């Protein structure tokens, strides 16, 4: 499993949730962060990969730092999205 070198200020676990929940929750969490801070989102929905990319391009005050695909401790495939608040 890949070790990430990105420091996350907050973590959002939306495993098991299907869209639109991951992005709705991510937006709520980002609003709680300070500018420059990073949110780590853990999702199981494969659709989240393109959705988070698209969301980061559309939304005004965030950027997509990195995306990873790995397995969690339960051997379930998870998708990690690092989102930084930029404004």
């Amino acid at each position: 499993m890949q070790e990430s070198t990105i420091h996350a200020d907050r973590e959002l676990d939306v495993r098991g949730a299907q869209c639109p929940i991951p992005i709705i929750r991510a937006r709520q969490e980002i609003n709680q962060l300070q500018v420059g801070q990073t949110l780590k989102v853990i999702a199981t929905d494969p659709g989240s990969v393109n959705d988070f990319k698209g969301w980061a391009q559309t939304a005004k005050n965030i950027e997509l730092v990195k995306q990873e695909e790995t397995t969690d401790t339960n051997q379930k495939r998870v998708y990690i999205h690092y989102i930084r608040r930029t404004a």
Partner: protein
Amino acid sequence: MHNQQATVKTHELKLMLDRGDKFVLLDVRNQEEFERWRIEGRHPLEVKHVPYFRFVEDPDNAIQGLPKDQLIVAVCAKGGSSAWVVNEVLRPRGFQAVNLEGGMLAWGSYYQVQELPESSSRLRIYQLNRVARGCLHHIIAYGPGLDQAVVIDPPRHTDKVLDFIGQKNLKVTAIIDTHAHADHVSGGVKLSQITSAPYYLHPYDGIHPMDVLPATFAYEMLKDGMQFDLNGAKLTVLHIPGHTLGNTALFLESSDRRYLFSGDSIFLQSIARPDLGGRAETWTPLHYKSLYTRLLTLPDDTIVLPGHYSRPQEARADGLFAATLGELKRTNVDLRTYTELEFRNHILSSLPQFPPQYVDIKRVNLGLLAADADRIEELELGKNVCALATAYKT
């Protein structure tokens, strides 16, 4: 005030599309998914693409351009995001919006069943149309009580096939795959296990053309000239290599009519591509011979029932995908009276992109690859690309 969930089901949406109802299809999926495949009908359809996260970020901006005076049908991948957009954003703002229940996932597994009106005494032919992908599957009901059936190219959603068979009180006597499919997972083996009817495939298609490995299950072998007796009507197997090496078409003759279940050989507005085994150069001459010396020499009044279509507009006014061989010779651009060389040049310059997932789908169909439901959904994403590129030009 709590808004009632407003939804439309897949079969209802299909009716709306067939009628040419005026509504706006609001697709809220991301760009990649929208480009991969989308809902279409035979009439012009107004489509608006606004990814759902735009409604999350800035709903007042996202609703710009949406009509207040027309029905909006929202669709997403599985029905969750579109339901949210409809119930939390659009309806509270006074839009007449409804959600496609189950989204593209449900649309992808929806089959419309229609009976061919050109039936014969003691024969009924049913066409199952997997609308999202352009796949066609057929059931021939025969026998004095019309209580026996042959299933041709059964889809993997065997529950849908079994529901239909149950409704019509049919006993399946044979299950035939015209060829080993590369674009969709076949329900042939599974249906055979459930109904105990034998499953037929041509042995040349029992070997994966890329892996050169045999199917891991036993099956009954189709052979050129083999006949099935359907209570007096005859179903003859024609071995027509080209699209695959073990490709077959099934010629049905009753007392007064002839039908050709052409699988992937002749389509209504194109022909099947011969490159999915990775050997376009060597398979094209076989394809030419099969089409021109075997299929096109059948009687002109033969009703052709293909295995795929590329555009909903290929359907007849009654919604069925069927045409006589005579009509096809006049209108199908890929069935011109080509010489072999002209045909070869035409084929080799008209090949669409090779879909890499087709190699895996065929492995699944031969039992060489195990795939769970999620993986199969992924593999089957998108419309079929079994025809030459000419079929996809808009």
